[in-house]
């Protein structure tokens, strides 16, 4: 871990300003990922700007939905009564991730900005385009069992590790950010990016921009939803494939559908065509299989993760079945519904 300046910001404006003048500045809230990365010498910030004192820790009613302050902890968010009632998909996704201890420390903004768990990214003895642009990607042709099957590039096949973000993508949340050029809103689908030729950039945040809140729209799909997470052990592991599904049903037909996948791409993965395909169709296994086939049709697996394509296909079908039946995956009972 390198030596760094430490600044404590009292307001968002102060935080943004402190960022602007520093070499390799990073905002720090819960620090559950950043501090690890500093210990691994992957992140070497010149300045840490402590934002934990900013007044961003409230969950407020907003425009028919909820406005979640960037500093609301994952635990506080998951156990908020309004979230439990109206956005149980988000609650379940949060509780499917990390551990109680981590969720107590990790913030909403930080969850969005956590970095990939690619083995090579974490190991400074190996090349990594995301860590050191231009050095190469040893995960390609290497150990890539946990890597992306959608939207990867020749420069990077890493995945985004968050569970919460998969739910936020399905819910079509909006990220409110503040920066040197003022405030702006970013649709959740546009917040994270695909790696392309610049995998060092995880998001479309501009330098100095800080996440201020995540805004949930009115519709929470609280009746027909699921968060189905498949992983290498029954708790405390990142998703190999996860599915966030939300449906609005009209009788036995799908009125609207939201579907996002985790663990398969550099960002929460959505396929609008598949969602469109579901619309107006009977909520049956056949319909769900057709949607799943459409999603995985564009999968491009690596040397070791071909299984994820089939796993994703089956998980989508099961997830949509769970959502349609109103029997969301239990977070505590590890038997899959």
């Amino acid at each position: 871990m390198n030596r760094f300046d430490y600044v404590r910001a009292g307001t968002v404006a102060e935080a943004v300003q402190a960022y602007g003048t520093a070499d390799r500045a990073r905002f720090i809230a819960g620090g559950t990922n950043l501090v690890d990365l500093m210990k691994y010498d992957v992140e070497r910030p010149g300045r840490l700007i402590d934002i934990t004192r900013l007044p961003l820790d409230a969950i407020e009613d907003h425009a028919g939905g909820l406005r979640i302050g960037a500093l609301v902890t994952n635990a506080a968010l998951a156990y908020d009564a309004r979230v439990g009632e109206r956005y149980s998909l988000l609650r379940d996704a949060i509780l499917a991730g990390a551990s109680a201890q981590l969720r107590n420390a990790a913030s909403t903004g930080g969850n969005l900005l956590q970095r990939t768990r690619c083995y090579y990214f974490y190991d400074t003895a190996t090349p990594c385009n995301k860590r050191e642009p231009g050095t190469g990607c040893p995960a390609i042709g290497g150990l890539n069992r946990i890597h992306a099957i959608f939207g990867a590039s020749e420069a990077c096949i890493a995945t985004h590790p968050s569970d919460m973000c998969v739910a936020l993508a399905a819910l079509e949340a909006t990220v409110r950010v503040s920066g040197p050029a003022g405030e702006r809103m970013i649709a959740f689908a546009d917040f994270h990016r695909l790696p392309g030729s610049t995998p060092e950039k995880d998001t479309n945040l501009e330098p100095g921009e800080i996440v201020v809140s995540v805004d949930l729209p009115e519709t929470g799909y609280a009746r027909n939803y699921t968060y189905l997470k498949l992983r290498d052990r029954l708790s405390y592991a990142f998703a190999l494939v996860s599915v966030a599904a939300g449906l609005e049903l009209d009788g036995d037909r799908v009125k609207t559908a939201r579907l996002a996948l985790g663990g398969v791409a550099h960002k929460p993965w959505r396929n609008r065509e598949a969602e469109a395909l579901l619309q107006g169709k009977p909520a049956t296994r056949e319909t769900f299989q057709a949607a799943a086939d459409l999603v995985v049709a564009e999968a491009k697996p690596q040397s070791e993760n071909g299984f994820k394509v089939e796993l994703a296909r089956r998980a989508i079908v099961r997830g949509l079945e769970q959502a349609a039946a109103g029997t969301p995956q239990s977070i505590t009972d590890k038997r899959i519904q």
Partner: protein
Amino acid sequence: MTQHFSTTGHDTFVGSPRSRVDGPAKVTGLAKYAAEFTASDLAHGYVVSSAIAKGRITRIDARAAEAVPGVVKVLTHENRDRTAWLDYNYQDAVAPPGSPFRALYDDAILYSGQPVALVIAEDFETARYAATLVRVKYDTETPVTDVRQVEDEAYVPPKKRNGIKPPPKPWGDADAAFDNAPIQLRQDYRLAIEHHNPMEPHASTVVYEGDGKYTVYDKIQGVSNSQAYIASVFGLKKDDVRVMNPYLGGGFGSGLRPQYQLFLAMLAARDLKRSVRVVLTRDQMWTFSYRPDALQTVSLGADRDGGLQALRHDATGATSHFEDYQEVVVNWAGVLYKCDNVALTYKLAKLDTHTPSDMRAPGAVTGVFAIEIAMDELAYETGVDPIALRLRNYSDVDATAGGKLFGSKALKSCFEQGAERFGWAKRTPEPRSMRDGRELVGWGMATGVWESMMMQTNARAVLTADGKLEVGNTAGEIGTGTYTILAQIAADSLGLPMEDVTTKLGDTSLPEAPVSGGSWTAASSGTAVMKACRSVAAQVFVLARQMEASPLANVDFERVVFADGRIAVADDPSRSVSLVEAMRAGGMDRIEAVESATPDKDFNSAYEAYTHSAVFVEVKIDEELGQVRLTRVVSAIAAGKILNPKTARSQILGGVVMGIGSALEEESMMDHRLGRFMNHNLGEYHVPVNADIYDIDVIFVDEEDKANPLGVKGLGEIGIVGTAAAIANAVFHATGKRMRHLPITVDKLL
């Protein structure tokens, strides 16, 4: 031959469930571990690890690191002080044949993650930061880390590893019998490379006492091993090096050999003439000692009723280029099963890795896994129930030891009681025939076996005039309950309450015991402590009898019992003397005895000694999604006398959980292009978490054994052996998919 007798004529504490005497210290943080001891002049060392797996260091530039305020020195192979010259000096008590790894020895890189520099600073954070500034340039060669690549170069180790039985000579003609057998099964089996990953990372705190003397706190499973290693490597007298390690945060074998952090901490302390601590990071726990990969082929020839006619088990295990690590992989089938034509072979292949090391039930986890899946395959091939098949081929003698009898073998009781508790009779044998809702249900079983060993061990007992007893030796308490069982044995041996007994372990100022491993500590240290206590008892008895008007006058030692702090005539308890009175009357402040326990030669020439188990498991599998839940385990254990059913049960639970990890989760993933383990953290190297563990039921069957006076066999390893095979067999029963490569992950099940 030694008679089996209870310690005092009647057991009060031995055999009863007792909570750990060190439990309160552990849960309140009073128990101190190697990295928690300190000194006023303590400096902190941080290891710089090699980025490549094979080649040479062409340049190390430590100037930027040395320029950081607070950095004391950067040690490399270029500037380190000399240490002993010969390989012999580096060979610790459990070293395999070869040239032990020497940290900072020269410019050669032998494996990825090898220590190449030690940055020493006034505080840990400074050392860690400065370590990132050390620039190392390499001449890189292509490493070979895949055992399949060097299988053709495999060789029979020319020099046998001490304590490891090589495969027996073949008997009959296994190949011809296989070719003639009505049923022929031949399959390859493979488990993943595993790392021990105890919660406590390896650490050494070397306190420089001045005048060339050192007190060392080392994470080790036996302090005597570290002391001898330090003395030999650094040319010191043993008396000048005191090594202590009262507690170990798990070892599983990774702490049997002195690891490189001890060498580096000593090297730095001697160089700087000050105290130095070196703690490895979690990542660095992947830079030494692991359970090696092994390529295994099992060939079973049988008649149509499952009677074995031919048995071959061939294994090629991985080792390093510098040592021939060996473990017992292939002998187990010959120990367990009766067969007239048997060939067991074991070879090694060299890789550009560190030397593997013993990891809980080394070799047995590897070999029994293969054999016990093969037996399940035979059960299906012949339509014979898996337990009936094992009974049909049950051996009452150890064929690998020329047909010697077993001292005891209550494996049949394990089958019976385990099957009864599990409800095995309700199993429908066809694969995919049992369901629970959407999930497929699988019931599988396997046999476990491990050697029961005893080692030459010394122990001391000291009784003081206040009636308090202290016992101990250098043995390591590796988290198994050794403090507790020794206190039980000591208390019964002198008839004292347990709270009047203190056990001291892990200190080289105490009588010597071997490293704690191989499940031999309970038998070895237990017997030595009992003997020392009985020796003290005999001395107090003399004092008691010499008292004026002693109620014990004219009574022989054989006719008294020690109970409730008193010596009483066995058939007339009204005649008694308290230990305290006897010592006072004799004018003694303390009575001390050091005794030695040795393996019973007569017993060992007549008998072979093993622990056994029958493991039954239930899996529930969502087949569509490849998700496995291990919902039930019954592990029935035959391990002689159980000293403490509570700590014993915990031992088995731990072994079973580790077996579940081995079956379903654990895998150190090597990038063979880089020769480097890549998932070197506990986020990506999966071990079971609470959510993975459902019911585990432990049964101890009655078994009387006479290998030692306590009748104890040891429990550290038997719980893991067979567990992975039972799980793989249950997965087959559930799904019809035969899993021969571990871990059984979703990709293999889809």
